[in-house]
Structure formats: structure tokens, C-alpha cells
């Protein structure tokens, strides 16, 4: 009896010890279970967000808009007859001026914008204004060096048409077609102004998209995250714009004050000003998990929440101008398409690479960018960065952002070692797309730029970074930790800091593993000897 009692007591004591050890673990487990699961039920934190969907004015009621118009400028006059002074607002914006102040490395401030910048798509507007100003919010901007300040030339309709039928003609200085017109193989049609004017309202996606979807000469060529598919899209493609989610328009985020629209495009912009930020509505601590909120210090929201872009249609990733000018044996222009139907070669433009569902590149950015300015010397043996971002790990204002890195080869002056803007478009004897002579195109283009052309050209590798801000994924598809916190993760190239999970000291790891192996070996040898000697 007594021994039974004693062994029972012993058992109870051991059980008590076991329970005492187990309790903290069970509590810890419950805590973790409660904090890590069910996150999908956490409501999204929003501040300062309101959508005003009620139309304030019905433009179809205005008599002045019901008359017959001979020219689009007459329409603008009609608009300004009520919205007088609005012309001043519009003409103060970069949408009108196509330029913003830019401080060069030497401290000089210049006006920099579409009218004088270089990119690695269609290269530059100089000498190609007739085509390029198809995307200007004015009518008939022919000479970008001359004054352009007649308010009747403001194209109000392109942004405010809600009928969907208004369209500027392709390649006619931003004017809509008066009659049936084919330029560069693209047809433009006249349309019923009365129908357009009855629909006037707040800009919608298709208004912005008319230009911003098709930059670079086709849908989704430039951005990769802005394209026609966004007009009617789903939550899966873009949580904000999805018809089955928030269904927000562009100006819900790109808030507009006196026609000045918030937002920067760093292919042109350079200053950390007037930017749209996710934090405006989502705050800097939008996550339930505090560790994730710590990330917002130095990681842009887009980095994790836009795992990939070009989710519906492919985007152009590479453009090699040096291969342009090849013809079919029959003398016709050569065109090649890939299996998905995207153009991979065109006699006029050279070779392309298109990609879909692209993972972005990642760079540091403090919101400031620098650009190649016409006349800057280049090193043709290296890739020329036509734009690049400032920022690094030690700069506390820098965040890691996702970008679309667009590379290519384009023409440069091989003697003067600077970039060339060639004359591409025009019914004349020097335009490349008609004459296919780089020398002539370079000469005309550089004459417009105002820089000497040596007569010798070459092709240099170039690169541009386009920040990716759209096509925000549903939260369940945002990046998991290991996408970056792993040996060959997405941030493998951003190496100026220690990233847990990615970085390690090789010497230490080797030493450590050897230490462990030696311990094990020692134990095994010692144990074996003990057993044998026994």
C-alpha cells in the first residue's frame, strides 16, 4: 500500500513539472494562433478617403453647347465663356507646358519635360512634334520653342468627354480629324461634336488612358502597369480599379486642384513634389503585424503589393533601334510577331522584347530623379542611364521601390559622344520612317535640338527606370517575406545593407558548420571508444 502511494506521489510530482513546463508553451501557442491567423477578416484601415459620385452639372442643358461648331477651338471658346479664367489654370499645368523646373548637377535650373527629354522609346519630340503632340492637351502645337499661349487651343474635350467617341487624330499636332484621315497607317475619323458635348463631365479612366495607356506608340508599351485593360478590370488585376472591388477612377488618387493633377512620372519628373502616396489613405501603419509596419519606413507599399505588372497584356521591355531598316526580299517592310501576337520586329523601329506578368526590379528612391540632358557627354562603352533615382540605404528618406527597367539600343553621335534625337516622323526627305537613312534623320533632328551633328553615329545601350505604382494586387497575393528574405530573393541586387535571410557571413557559416560537425564527430568517436572499451 505504502509503495503504491509513494509511486503515485512521484508520478504526480513529475506530472506537475511537466505541466509547469508545458503551460508557457501552450500560452505562447495560443497567443501566436490568435495573432497570426484570421488576418483576412481584418478590415482595411482607411483615412481621408471619400468618393463624390454625384454629378454637379448636366452639360447637356447648356444652350451654348448645342450649337454647330466649325472647329474645336470654337468649342473651347464656348467652354471658357462660362469657365472663364480656367484657361489660366490649365495653361499653368505640366499637362500643358510639358516641362517642369529641373536643377542640373551644376546647379543651373532649366525647364525639362517631354519637349526636350530623351527616352529609349521614340527617343525625342524634337522634329517629331506632329506625331508627338497627338498627346498634348492642346490643338496644333507645331513649334515647341515658340510661345504657345492662345487659350482657344486648349483641348478641354480630351479630358472631359464622356461619350467615348472623341479622339485626337494620330499625327496631326493634337487636332481631331475634320475628315477621314490616314496617317502612318492609322485611320482617324470625324465625329458628332454635339454628342460629345452633351456628355461633358469629370475625367474618367478612358480620358487619362487615351494618352497614358498608349505611350510609346501602343497599348502598354511604356508603363506596363497602365493599359486599356484597366478600363474594365477585376480586383485580381487592380484592387483599386477592379469593378468587383473599390472601382476607383484615376482622379480618386490623382487628386486635382485647379486642374493641377497630383502625381509624378519619373521618366520626366525629377523632384520629390506633388506625389501621390498610398499612405494618404492607408496611413504609415496599415498592417496589424507591427513587424510589417516597421517595413513601411524603408519599403514602399508598392514593393510588396505589386508583385508583378503587365498582368493582362504584355509590355515592351527592350527596344533595339540598331536593327531597324531591314526589308523583306520583295521590298516590303518586315514585321515579325511572337506567339502571343506582339510585334518583335518592325522595319521602322527595330527589334523588341515583350513580357507579361513581369517581376519588377527594385531600387532605392528618395523621390528625386536625374535625367540625361541633351548635350551631356556619354561613355558609349557603358549603358547610358537616361534617368536614374537618387537614394540609398543610409539616406533615411529613401525607400525601396519597384520599377520597370526598360533597356534598349539607340542612336548617338559617335564623335561628339552624346545622344541624338533623330527625325523619325514626317512626310519629308529626311525622316527615318520614310527614308530609312539615320544620317539624314540625325542631321534634321539635331538641327532642331540645336546641337551639332558630327556625321558619325552609333548605337549605345540605354536604360530607363519606370516606377510601378498601378496594378496593386489583392492582399492575399502581396509578397510573402521569403520573396525578399531569402538567398536569391527579389532584393538580391539591392546590396547596400544587411537583409536577414538573404545575407550571411560565409566565413562564419563555414566555421559554424565545421564546429557543429566536429562536435558531432567528437561525440561519435568518444561514444564508440567508450562502447568498445567496455
Amino acid at each position, binding site marked *: 500500500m505504502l509503495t503504491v502511494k509513494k509511486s503515485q506521489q*512521484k508520478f504526480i*510530482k*513529475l506530472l506537475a*513539472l511537466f505541466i*509547469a*513546463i508545458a503551460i*508557457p*508553451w501552450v500560452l*505562447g501557442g495560443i*497567443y*501566436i494562433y490568435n*495573432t*497570426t491567423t484570421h488576418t483576412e477578416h481584418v478590415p482595411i484601415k482607411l483615412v481621408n478617403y471619400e468618393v463624390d459620385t454625384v454629378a454637379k452639372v448636366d452639360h447637356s442643358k447648356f444652350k451654348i453647347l448645342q450649337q454647330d461648331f466649325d472647329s474645336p477651338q470654337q468649342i473651347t471658346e464656348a467652354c471658357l465663356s462660362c469657365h472663364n479664367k480656367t484657361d489660366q489654370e490649365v495653361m499653368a499645368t505640366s499637362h500643358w507646358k510639358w516641362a517642369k523646373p529641373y536643377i542640373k548637377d551644376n546647379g543651373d535650373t532649366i525647364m525639362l519635360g517631354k519637349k526636350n527629354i530623351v527616352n529609349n522609346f521614340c527617343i525625342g519630340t524634337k522634329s517629331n512634334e506632329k506625331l508627338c503632340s497627338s498627346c498634348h492637351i492642346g490643338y496644333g502645337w507645331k513649334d515647341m520653342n515658340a510661345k504657345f499661349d492662345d487659350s482657344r487651343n486648349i483641348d478641354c474635350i480630351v479630358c472631359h468627354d464622356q461619350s467615348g467617341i472623341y479622339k485626337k487624330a494620330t499625327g496631326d499636332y493634337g487636332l481631331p480629324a475634320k475628315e477621314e484621315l490616314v496617317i502612318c497607317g492609322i485611320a482617324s475619323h470625324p465625329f458628332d461634336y454635339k454628342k460629345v458635348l452633351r456628355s461633358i463631365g469629370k475625367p474618367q479612366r478612358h480620358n487619362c488612358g487615351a494618352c497614358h495607356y498608349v505611350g510609346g506608340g501602343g497599348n502598354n508599351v511604356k508603363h506596363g502597369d497602365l493599359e486599356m485593360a484597366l478600363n474594365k478590370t477585376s480586383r485580381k488585376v487592380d484592387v483599386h480599379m477592379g469593378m468587383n472591388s473599390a472601382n476607383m477612377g484615376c482622379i480618386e488618387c490623382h487628386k486635382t486642384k485647379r486642374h493641377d493633377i497630383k502625381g509624378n512620372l519619373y521618366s520626366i519628373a525629377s523632384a520629390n513634389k506633388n506625389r501621390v502616396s498610398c499612405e494618404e489613405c492607408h496611413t504609415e501603419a496599415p498592417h496589424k*503585424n507591427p*513587424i510589417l509596419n*516597421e517595413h513601411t*519606413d*524603408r519599403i514602399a507599399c508598392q514593393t510588396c503589393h505589386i508583385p508583378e505588372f503587365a498582368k493582362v497584356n504584355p509590355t515592351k521591355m527592350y527596344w533595339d533601334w540598331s536593327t531597324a531598316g531591314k526589308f523583306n526580299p520583295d521590298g516590303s517592310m518586315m514585321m515579325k510577331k511572337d506567339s502571343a501576337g506582339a510585334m518583335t520586329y518592325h522595319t521602322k523601329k527595330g527589334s523588341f522584347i515583350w513580357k507579361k506578368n513581369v517581376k519588377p526590379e527594385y531600387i532605392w528612391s528618395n523621390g528625386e530623379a536625374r535625367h540625361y540632358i541633351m548635350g551631356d557627354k556619354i561613355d558609349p562603352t557603358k549603358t547610358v542611364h537616361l534617368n536614374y533615382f537618387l537614394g540609398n*540605404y*543610409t539616406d*533615411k528618406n529613401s525607400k525601396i521601390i519597384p520599377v520597370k527597367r526598360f533597356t534598349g539600343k539607340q542612336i548617338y553621335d559617335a564623335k561628339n559622344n552624346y545622344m541624338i534625337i533623330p527625325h523619325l516622323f514626317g512626310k519629308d526627305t529626311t525622316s527615318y520612317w520614310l527614308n530609312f537613312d539615320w544620317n539624314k534623320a540625325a542631321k534634321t533632328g539635331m538641327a532642331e535640338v540645336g546641337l551639332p551633328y558630327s556625321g558619325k553615329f552609333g548605337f549605345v545601350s540605354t536604360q530607363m527606370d519606370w516606377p510601378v505604382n498601378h496594378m496593386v494586387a489583392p492582399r492575399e497575393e502581396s509578397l*510573402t*517575406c*521569403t520573396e525578399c*528574405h*531569402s*538567398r536569391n530573393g527579389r532584393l538580391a541586387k539591392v546590396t547596400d*545593407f*544587411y537583409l*536577414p*535571410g*538573404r*545575407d*550571411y*557571413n560565409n566565413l*562564419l*557559416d563555414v*566555421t*559554424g*558548420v565545421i*564546429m*557543429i560537425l*566536429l*562536435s*558531432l564527430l*567528437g*561525440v561519435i568517436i*568518444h*561514444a564508440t*571508444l*567508450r562502447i568498445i*572499451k*567496455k
Partner: protein
Amino acid sequence: MKKKTYIYRGFERFWHWNQALLIFFLAFTGFEVHGAYHIIGFQHAVQLHNIAAWALLVLIVFAIFWHFVTGEWKQYIPTTKFIKEQISYYITGIFKGAPHPTHKTIYNKFNPLQRLIYLGLKLLVLPVQVITGFIYLFYVYPNNPGHVFGLSTIAVIHTFGAFTLLAFVIAHVYLTTTGDTPLSSIKAMITGWEVIDIDEKEERMQNLQKAVDESVAGYYRLDLNGTILDVNDAWLEMYKCKDRSKVVGKHYAVTRDKKNLTELDDLVAKVLNGEIITGIPVTRKCFDGSTGKHLLSANPVFEDGEIVGLGGFILDISEAEKLNEHMTFAVRNSGAGYYRLDENGVIVDVNEAWLKLYKFDSKDEVIGHHFELTRKPSEVGKLEESFKKVMAGETISGVIAERRCKDGSTGKHILSANPIYIGNKIVGMEGFILDITKLNDTN
């Protein structure tokens, strides 16, 4: 000597096993954070690692508290004694079946290697891990004000600590198998009980301590100035004092009447000079004003070869003394003669009545002489016989004996005799004599 001993207490085992689990858990999640493998995912690894880190910190705080409160921290004091022997035991001795060079006892749980390694863990590896870990946890980004070293330095140190701990765990787990049986050490860490050596010295100290605490003998200790440092319960009882604080910190003068104080002063001076006093009867003054008698022993207390005070015991003799006094009084005043002999038959004591009967004038004339003195040569044999009987343990009463007085005359008396015991040893004989000469004469 070996004995099944309760060596690891409850909290110690709770702490040990939870720390072990946490270290395994931290290593598992930590190396996932390090990128060594992908099992539970980086996010879970980080979250769990952080929570476990907090848990370990709490556990360590409790453990530090426990070590100080129980005094167990002393187990980790490093020693070089036997360290060579311990190393050579693990390298060679263990294979030859040699005995452990050091003995595990409850007062010395760890061998010198263990002491060194565990102390290194507690003072170096774990603090480094905790400190670098919490810098890692709160470092966040370089705009944090705590940004000093750069995360990579912190991470490298932290990782190195992890490797060190892992190597320790391997060796530690293996070395647990080197006990009496391969599993005895692990079993001990689970149940708390292990068959280990008894530290006889410590054991004795403990028993002595207990004996002093619970003894009926009063114990006291004084410093050089005569201030009482400590007394036990028996001492307090003898002095009829209920509050130890009334005694401790006071000068010993409170324990004596003025007239008896000088005697004690002398004693204290002697002992502080290095003498040892073994049992002197003294009179104490109790705290209720009464007096009592006790036997006092005192010996100097040494520290590093220097006398720093004195201590000793007191044994109450008030009752015995009283009894003795009555007896002495009775014997002294009785008409019966009293005598006492030592084991050799030498007279040690006699009373006045005895001297009268034998017609001696003073005790000095008889004390120190053999009992032959009291008999005619023809009668000595009889007494010799009685003496032998008593020394063998018998008690004699009513024997008629013929004495020889100082002047050579004789007389008759009835003699009683009984042995004197000290402990269970007979050390002499004593008894009474009643004169019957006159009676005889009358008869």
C-alpha cells in the same frame, strides 16, 4: 559514500527544461531566419523567434533571482582544482573505467569543467545572445537612434553565438551519458533525485549546526569587543529571554551581576589570549532578574589565524547545584561519618563526623592517604574485600567494622558503601559510618 539525494529542485528542473526547449526552438527558428532552410516560412520564424526571445528573457530573470536567493550561484564559481584531472578523465580515464576524479555532491554539483563552461554560458554566451538579439529586434532601420554597429555586425555575432550554443548542446547532451549509467543524469534532471556522493564534511557541518540549534546546551558567540553576536534558543531559555534582539548586539555585561562581572571579564581576556576554558561553574543573571548557575565553556574563534572573538556553550546546573548543596549540608551536619575513596582506595573526602569518630583534627591528616590508615593491620583485609566488591558494582550496607583511630584506640561502626559512577564507569567508593562502640560497651 553514496546516497540517493534530492539534487535538483523543482524550479531548477523547470528552468533547465524550459531553457533547453527554448534554445532548441530559438535555434530552429533562428536558422530559418538566417536563411539556412525553409520549413515554417520566414514570417512565422521571425514571429516565433521574437516571442521565444521574450520568453527566454523572462525565464533568465527568474533563474537569476533563483540562483541568488538559494545561493546556488556559488556552484558556478570556477576552480582550477582537478581541472586537469577532469580533462584527462574524459580523454583517457573514461575508457579505462577509471573513477570520476571529482565527486558530485549536493554542495558541489558540477565538476570543474562544468563550472567553467556553465559560467561561460551564463556570463558570456547567453548575455551576448540576449543583447545582440534585442538590438536585432529593435534595430529596425538606420534612422533608428539605436543604430550604432550596423545590423550585419550584430547578426554575425548573434549567429556565431547560435553556433556556439548548438555545439554546446551537442557536447552537453552527450556528456550527460557519462554518469553512473548512461541515463542516470538525465533521469536526475527529470525527477530531481540522483545517487550521488555524500560530502561527509558538509554533512557533519549540517548535523553540527542542527545539534547546536536544537541542543539543550546554550550556545553563544562574542566578538573581540565582547559584543554578543549569536546565541541559540537554549541560551535564551536559560537566560529567560524571549527576544533574541535584546541579546544580540549587546555587551556580555548584561548577563552578569556586578559582583560576578569581573570574573567573566577575566575569563574573556584569557580566552581572547588563546586559552580554552572547559567547564567552569558560573552564576548568571537572567533577564527577569533571577540568577542561575551554569557550567561555561569558552574557546577562541579564529579567522585566518587571528582571534576574532570567542564562543562556547553553557550547561545549566542550577538544579543539580541545589541538590548538591542540600546533600552537603545534610552530610556535614549529620552525626554519621561520610567518606569518599577514589578507585585506588585513596581517601578523597571525609566529613566532620568522620574526623570526630577517628579522632583526627583536620581533613588534611587523612585526605590523600590509603584507607589502610583506618584499620589495624589485621582488619585491613576485611575492608579490602568490601572495597573490591563495591568496585565491582555491589552496594554494602550494615557491615560492622572495627576502626583504628588516630591515637591507636579502636572503635566499632556500621559501614555502608556504594560505588561512585561517572557515566557507567566506577571511579570510587563512598558511604557512611555510624558509631556503635558505646552500644557495644553498654551491651
